[in-house]
C-alpha cells in the first residue's frame, strides 16, 4: 500500500498522528513508573539522537527543493561553521544558527560567482 493513495488528512491521522501520539502517551504513562534517568530511557534517547542526526545528515547530503541546487560542500561547510560557533558560544544557539545560514549564503555566492 502506497501512502500517496490515501486522502492526505486521513493518511496523516493514521500513519502520522497515531504513531507519534503513541510515544507521547507512553511518556505520560511511564513518567509515574519509570526513573527518567533509567537505563531503558537512555537507550531510547541514544537511538532517537542518532535518528535525528541521520535525518540532518540526509537533508545535507540529499536535500529537497531549492536547496538541492546548492553544493553539498557549501551545505556541509555551513553546518560545520554552525557547530564551531556553537562550541565557542555554548549559550547562544541562535548565533550559531545565524552563522551557519550566513556561511551557506557566502559559500554559495562565492561558488556561483566563480563558475
Amino acid at each position, binding site marked *: 500500500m502506497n501512502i500517496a493513495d490515501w486522502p492526505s488528512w486521513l493518511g*496523516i491521522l493514521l*500513519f502520522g498522528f497515531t504513531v*507519534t501520539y503513541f510515544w507521547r502517551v507512553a511518556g505520560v504513562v511511564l*513518567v509515574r513508573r519509570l526513573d527518567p534517568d533509567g537505563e531503558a530511557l537512555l537507550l531510547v534517547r*541514544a*537511538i532517537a539522537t542518532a535518528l535525528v542526526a541521520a535525518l540532518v545528515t540526509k537533508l545535507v547530503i540529499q536535500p529537497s527543493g531549492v536547496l538541492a*541546487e546548492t553544493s553539498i560542500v557549501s551545505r556541509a561547510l555551513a553546518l560545520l561553521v554552525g557547530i564551531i560557533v556553537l562550541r565557542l558560544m555554548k549559550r547562544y544557539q541562535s548565533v550559531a*544558527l545565524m552563522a*551557519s545560514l550566513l556561511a551557506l549564503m557566502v559559500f554559495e555566492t562565492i561558488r556561483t560567482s566563480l563558475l
Partner: protein
Amino acid sequence: MPYDWGALFHGIRAIFSLAGLVMTSSFIGFGALLHSMGLAIELGWYTTLFIWAMPGQVVYLTMLAQGASVVATALAVSLTAVRLMPMVMLILSKARQEGQPRWPEYVLAHCVAITLWVISGQSIEKLPRHRRLPWALGLGVTMIFAMVGAMTVGYYLADALPPILACAIIFLMPSFFGLSLISSAYYRFDYLAIALGAVLTPIGMLYFPQFDLLVAGLVGGCAAFLLGRPIRHRLSKHEAGEGRS
C-alpha cells in the same frame, strides 16, 4: 493545590522569545520546503496540527513524495517520535501534580516538541508548581497555531524570496536540528550517537534506501549506547542532577 489556569496566558507570552523566533523561522523554512517539494499546503497544516514534531513531519512528507509504503512511513515517523517520549516525561515530571485531573497531561503531551522542551528547561522551574502545567499548555497550544501561520507564510513566500535566501531558510531546519542535538547533548553517548547516526546515513542510503534513517538511527543509537555507557556511569557520579533539564 489545583492548577492555576491563569498561568495559561502567562505561557502564551513566552512564545515571544528567542527560541520562539528560531522556531518561527524554521517553520517558515518548513513551509518553503513543502512548496519546493511541490506538495499541497494542506499537508503542511495537517502534519503541523496532528504530528507536531518537525523531524516526523519532514520524514512523513519526504516518504509521501517518494511514494513509500504505509508500513515504512508509519515505522519511520514512529521512530522519530520515540524522541518525544523522554521529553514528555522530563517536562511532565516538572509540571504535573499528584491528585489532579490527568487530561491536561495528555493534551500537554501532544504539544511537546524540541523547542517547548528547550524553553521549559530554561524557565519552568522559576514558576510555582501549580502554575507550571497551565503555563506549558498555554505556550504549547499557542506554538502549534502560530507555527501553522508561520509555515503558511513560508509556503507562499517561497516564490517571492531571492533563491539564495530561500536556500538559507530551508537550510535553517537541518541546521537547527543539528545544532539543537549538539547543544542538548549531555552524556558521552549523545555525542557518539550523533557521530554514528551521521556516519551511518550515507551507508544506509546506499544499501537500504527505504530504511536508511531507521538503520542509521537503530544501529548508531544502540552502538553509541553500548560504547558510551561505561563513560556515562563515571560522568553521572559527579554530574548527577545537572544539565538534563
